[in-house]
């Protein structure tokens, strides 16, 4: 199908974009890479009055390091992240995740800010940001604020952004050499949304595993951080190989049934993914 008619604005600066949002409020939708939004317009699943296209705002592009954090501009394309040496050095989990996000032609256009702001519970990047304990940088009429990833994703496609705020960047604490990262997902075909996925990070120095963060996706309306399971694993580390304490996942995850997998199967698959990442770290 074709998109229904809409009006279109193309601000060149963040200030102009904020002006557009102030003027239009909830009548407007931000157009970032458009790889989800354009599809939903074409299918007429959404019908905004005005699109605010932020592709011409140069200040939203780019990857840099700022005071121990990796800062990624909201409009940085996914393909750029995939091949960025700065990202693979300071946030290797993002490099691991990237090839699993849709397909090359989509990643050439799709942006990190778009993925985070859209907050699709089946998408990889929101869970990745939660696993990395990252922050979302938002600008609004009252200036800039930072929102922890764990607070940002609130419900199905719902975030902490208000109607007059623009997501301008994400920031991630830079990885150190003791940290371990893992990514696994199970999808029917490469590039499809996963039935279940897991982004993991941890600190592994001498014999102790600490700061384990297990962020599961497509198991509920938003990424789920399984804190109890993580603490169970850390407690008996490194004696986890034979008896991995994953039973708590049954109460921590409550995925819905869908055409691809039942709730019970998803929990089972979440355990499988967890086991695979931990075994990968131990080997």
């Amino acid at each position, binding site marked *: 199908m074709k998109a229904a008619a809409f009006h279109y*604005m193309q601000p060149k600066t963040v200030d102009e974009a904020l002006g557009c949002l102030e003027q239009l409020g909830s009548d407007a939708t931000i157009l970032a890479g*458009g790889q989800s939004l*354009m599809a939903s317009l074409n299918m007429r699943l959404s019908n905004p009055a005005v699109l605010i*296209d932020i592709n011409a705002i140069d200040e939203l592009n780019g990857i840099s390091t700022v005071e121990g954090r990796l800062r990624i501009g909201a409009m940085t394309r996914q393909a750029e992240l995939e091949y960025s040496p700065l990202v693979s050095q300071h946030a290797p989990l993002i490099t691991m995740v990237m090839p699993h996000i849709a397909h090359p*032609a989509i990643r050439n256009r799709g942006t990190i800010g778009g993925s985070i702001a859209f907050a699709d519970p089946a998408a990889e990047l929101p869970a990745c940001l939660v696993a990395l304990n990252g922050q979302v940088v938002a600008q609004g009429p009252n200036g800039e604020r930072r929102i922890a990833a764990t607070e940002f994703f609130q419900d199905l496609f719902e975030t902490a952004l208000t109607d007059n705020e623009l997501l301008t960047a994400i920031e991630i604490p830079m990885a150190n050499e003791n940290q371990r990262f893992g990514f696994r997902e199970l999808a029917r075909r490469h590039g499809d949304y996963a039935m279940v996925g897991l982004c993991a990070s941890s600190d592994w120095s001498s014999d102790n595993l600490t700061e384990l963060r297990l962020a599961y996706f497509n198991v509920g309306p938003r990424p789920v951080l399984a804190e109890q399971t993580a603490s169970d694993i850390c407690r008996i580390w490194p004696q986890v190989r034979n008896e991995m304490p994953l039973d708590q996942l049954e109460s921590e995850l409550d995925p819905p049934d869908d055409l691809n997998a039942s709730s019970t199967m998803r929990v089972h698959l979440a355990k499988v993914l967890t086991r695979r990442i931990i075994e990968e770290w131990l080997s």
Partner: protein
Amino acid sequence: MSDSLAVLKGDNNISLTVNGESISERVPVRRNLADFLRLDLGLTGTHVGCEHGVCGACTVRLDGKIVRSCLILAIQADGKRVDTIEGLSDDGYLEDLQASFHARNGLQCGFCTPGILLTAAELIETHPDADREKIREFLSGNYCRCTGYHAIVDAIESVVHSRQKKREL
């Protein structure tokens, strides 16, 4: 209000380069790039399959990189360079890939072929040593309902090998 903050409605002028040629047209803001190429410019080699970014039939190059033309507005291509199967065939850029698809039956109905050729070209540019697994992964966003993909992977693999040989000479 400054020009850049104007609310654009109805038809607007865009100027872009398509297959090396400068084009100026008036387009409605809701017109996607695939329809602009096909309906306004008559470049029907870019195919429209699913119209929601899944099938890959509408793949074109925007400023040198492959994109889904059904997920981009024509107005967003203003000032940019677009290359389609027509231009990239005429200038010989895809010649060895096309010959290989022909030799190995890498197509049957041909509907997916323009998109697959553009995707394959970017694969070989960015991953000149791609193996079969990488080829399949890179092509995962381009659906073919005829061939079962095997012959397509064969055709691309053989171009990867022949270009590797050329590099070694």
